[in-house]
């Protein structure tokens, strides 16, 4: 019996030996390009299960500067900019960098009425305006609605082999559930309308799974057109568990309604950050929605201005 087992394992190992490709970190000399302004920020509206919590969340736009690719320190802040956001109701909100760290923050006042909603509410459009070093930049986005998540269903999984990796035994997310108008729980569905897009973020004990290959994006309920208004498909639900969890772990799932333009941006960013293997596609720059108002100016900014409603659920594995 043992020999048989070794034989079969041997044949598998043989396969991996031949075909599991090898990767090696190498030194490469890269040219450094000139520095550019990075715009990094989402106008958000947080919903915790059913309660709107946007009223207490500050809105943040980070301005940074690009650096040579191998510069491994945090991006340098872009200081001294004037940052405002104008919404669809023609209200302008000023974002200030009081700490001089490049994080431009709107700290209030917040309103909580439907006629005069807070900054950051689904169904609104936003325009960002930045004046930095004599250049004026602008960007626009729109906030879609987001499905609310009521609870997470965990399931115990045996140890499995996935490609060359072995996943240890433990819990993974089997379902995310929402409560319908009838009060019954059912698998969370994509919101009706072609091209509503989502970014699912998983946190374990308040730590975000922050690797590029863990970025979990959905176009409608799947990865592309044609999956409107159904429950999120298994590959998206499976990706909510980047690893197996243990009893007692506190798991938080956030669903960001990023919208179609931001989906294309984030999806291409994810591809560029994980562009490995036999079937890699040509390396390209990610697009940006930050536009210099002066079309003739050679100064360009990079990054993305987004808007998203965010629903979340936090639940302990038990």
């Amino acid at each position, binding site marked *: 019996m043992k020999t048989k*087992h070794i*034989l*079969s*394992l041997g*044949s*598998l190992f043989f*396969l991996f030996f*031949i*075909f599991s*490709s*090898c*990767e*090696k*970190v190498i030194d*490469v000399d*890269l040219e450094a*390009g*000139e520095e*550019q302004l*990075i715009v*990094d920020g989402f106008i958000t509206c947080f919903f915790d299960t059913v309660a709107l919590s946007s009223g207490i969340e500050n809105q943040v736009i980070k301005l940074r500067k*690009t*650096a*040579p*690719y191998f*510069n*491994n*320190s*945090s*991006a340098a802040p872009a200081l001294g900019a004037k940052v405002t956001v104008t919404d669809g109701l023609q209200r302008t909100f000023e974002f200030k960098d009081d700490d001089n760290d490049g994080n431009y923050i709107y700290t209030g006042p917040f309103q909580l009425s439907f006629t005069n909603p807070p900054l950051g509410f689904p169904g609104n459009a936003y325009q960002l305006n930045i004046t930095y070093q004599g250049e004026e930049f602008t960007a626009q986005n729109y906030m879609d609605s987001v499905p609310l998540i009521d609870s997470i269903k965990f399931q115990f999984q045996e140890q*499995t082999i996935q490609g060359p990796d072995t996943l240890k035994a433990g819990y993974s997310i089997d379902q995310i559930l929402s409560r319908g108008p009838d009060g019954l729980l059912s698998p969370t569905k994509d919101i009706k309308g072609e091209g509503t897009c989502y970014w699912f973020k998983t946190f374990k004990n308040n730590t975000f799974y922050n690797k*590029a290959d863990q*970025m979990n994006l959905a176009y409608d*309920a*799947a990865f*592309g*057109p*044609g*999956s*409107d208004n*159904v*429950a999120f*498909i*298994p590959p998206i639900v499976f990706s909510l568990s980047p690893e197996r969890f243990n009893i007692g772990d506190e798991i938080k799932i956030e669903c960001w309604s990023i919208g179609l333009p931001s989906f294309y941006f984030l999806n*291409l*960013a994810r591809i*560029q*950050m*994980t562009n*490995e293997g*036999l*079937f*890699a*596609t*040509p*390396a*390209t*720059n*990610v697009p940006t929605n930050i536009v210099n108002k002066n079309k003739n100016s050679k100064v360009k900014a990079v*990054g993305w201005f987004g808007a998203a409603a965010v629903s979340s659920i936090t639940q302990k594995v038990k």
Partner: protein
Amino acid sequence: MGNINFSYQLISIQQSNVCIVLSPEFQTMKKFLLILFVSCFCSLLGVAQQKYTISGHVKDAASGEDIIGASVFAVESKLSVAANIYGFYSLTLPEGKHTITVSNLGYNNFTQVIELNKNIVLDINLEIRSEQLKEVEITSEKSDANVKDIQMSVAKLDIKTIQKVPAFLGEVDLIKVIQLLPGVSTVGEGATGFNVRGGSIDQNLVLLDDAPVYNSSHLFGFFSVFNPDAVKDVKLYKGGIPSQFGGRLSSLLDVRLKDGNNKTYHAEGGIGLLFSRLSIEGPLVKNKSSFIVAGRRSYFDLFFPLSKNKDIRESKAYFYDLSVKLNYILNEKDRIYLSGYFGRDVFGAGNPEFGFDLGNATGTLRWNHIYNSKLFSNVSLIYSNYDYRIGVGDEFDGFNWKSNIINYIVKPEFTYYLNPKNTITFGGSATYYTFDPGKLLFYSKGEKREVGSEPKYALENALYVGNEQRITGRLSMQYGLRFSNFNYMGEGTAYYFRDTVPNVRKDTINSKTFNNFETITSYNNLEPRFSLKFEVTDQSSIKASYNRTTQNLHLISNAAASTPLDVWIPSTNNIKPQIADQVALGYFRNFREDNMYETSVEAYYKEMQNQVDYIDGADLLLNKLVEGDLMSGTGRAYGLELYVKKAKGDLTGWVSYTLSRSERKVNGINNNDWYPNRFDKVHNLNVVGMYTLNKRLEFGSTFVFGTGTPATFPTNRIEYQGYIIPHNISGSRNNARIPVYHRLDLSATLHLKDKRSGKYKHDLVVSVYNVYARRNPFSIYFRSNPENPQQTQAVQFSVVGNIIPSVAYNFKF
């Protein structure tokens, strides 16, 4: 007859709405060619003398197999002809006594004196040159086809040579051997297909007994689908492509299966690390009909059920193929061939079960008919299918994804041996295509959705005529014209796009539905072909060629190595036919009296129009609006190919060196400037050596060296939401190169002794791939350190990073 048919075709060409888009450089050449073409054909009309014709088939005496390309030579009149791919030859000579000599590499020469006073049918059986006589025979052999043939830019490989080259995992692979020829390269190990003279992989027409093969790989590109035990002959045309071939820009790979021995039964097979193979051939009716059945299957999955691990036990991973051929000689004038190929790769694992399977199926029915000693015809009916399926789960949670491309082809071809100075070929083809670029049915909690594109349909018609003309003893020309007509048609929906900013997804402005067989758009193209040979001496010649080729099928793939999921789509109202113009010039020279050394130098320049490219972040699969993600550009490729071959003696082999560039220019990419293609290699050197030590032991070796392929390196980093995104501030494409590629492979073949009858032959092949275990780069990419996403690193990816030894046992009886 040939003349009548030709003039009819000229009329039909004039009446058609012919579109010729030539770059200015080729305008003058076009005029010149047209004049030449017309004047050459006119000169045929004056030729009409009383002569007699000797015709027949050239065959292998032992097996009855047709011998392709054998040279039939009339000694006194110094006229010769080569047997066609069915072994048929026809030579028209003046009345009187003639000494006919027939020769082919690896066979004893056949000589017979004939008295020609009427048309004669003479079938010739050549005997395989026995090993003992080899030393003697060397001097009598005149293998000088490379100098004497009008064809340039052609490589012919016999299966015996292919079998001697050291093979990856010991699996003999003709595609891998083709990659060792000048002008042919690959983007890297494990990549599907091959690149010919700066063309992309979809620009090669791969024919298996006339049937197009759309995916020539098993296991994503590691092995080719051709079973070496069933293959008779392989010919690669890189340029100067005769007018009877069309449909792809860059090359034609013509693979011919064996007919099967029509005298006695034989079996052949082997066990390697990956495949086990078996082929059986023999007569159905002795001397009249024969068959061959050859199959292969990978067998490592047979060990899976023995595993303790449930996941392995329930996994599937295997591939197999089956090649079958039958032929029947009805009478002296008619012969029928039926051949088929069926192969699949199957993978499956997990619960719910994930399954993926893909493969080709082809079938060819051919009818050879000899109208008279001068007119030979072949009519082929062809079917080809490539499809894949991916599925997981059930009708509650799961999906099922299918895609295919199917061809139905009718191809009548005629060869008219007008006189020893002119051999006219003419014919046509009609191909009906159905494309299913991919449809995904999926179920999420019982709700059903369908994604993907509708099927597309097309009809492609072609007419051609060509002539090979000997002008003087030393000067020959081959010229022809091919007319192709492509109809993209219903039933289906055509989409119309607004083309605004290059490299940004195009918006749909309109769509229109079309009925069955209703033309959506059609394209007509004229493709002139021209080759010239001038023999400077008996052992040297200069050859030149020009050809225009068009292509109406496009493989939609923007990955470095094409994936099995990539789909073919036709030219549409948005995608124009690809067009290439190639000129080539070569000098061919043999050395020593016995032509021991063959050498050649060829230079080529190729321009390509309407090359398909992709917007950044293009969505190519299951996207019914995929045409909105495509762009169009121009390409150019040029190079110099040096080749030295030693075909005889204990030590045989070749050295090939290619200096080349392959570039592309697309609005919206690389600041609208030229950039090198992903598969561009400036230097490419291949050294292949085979040595016979004695009757029992043979060695083989291969050394390859190539410039690293281009890659795009970033300059800056964009920190965004905690991620580090690579960014190239100049927006350039392929601005750097990965390190050079080089590799040495060795093999040894031991012919084992056998106490049984002399018929049973078996041998042991030990081979070592990547002898010095170099980690050859396939690509370099940039990513965050998995341990600390703030830190970035460059990573070199190698497909094979080890020395790979293997052993195989082969038998034959």
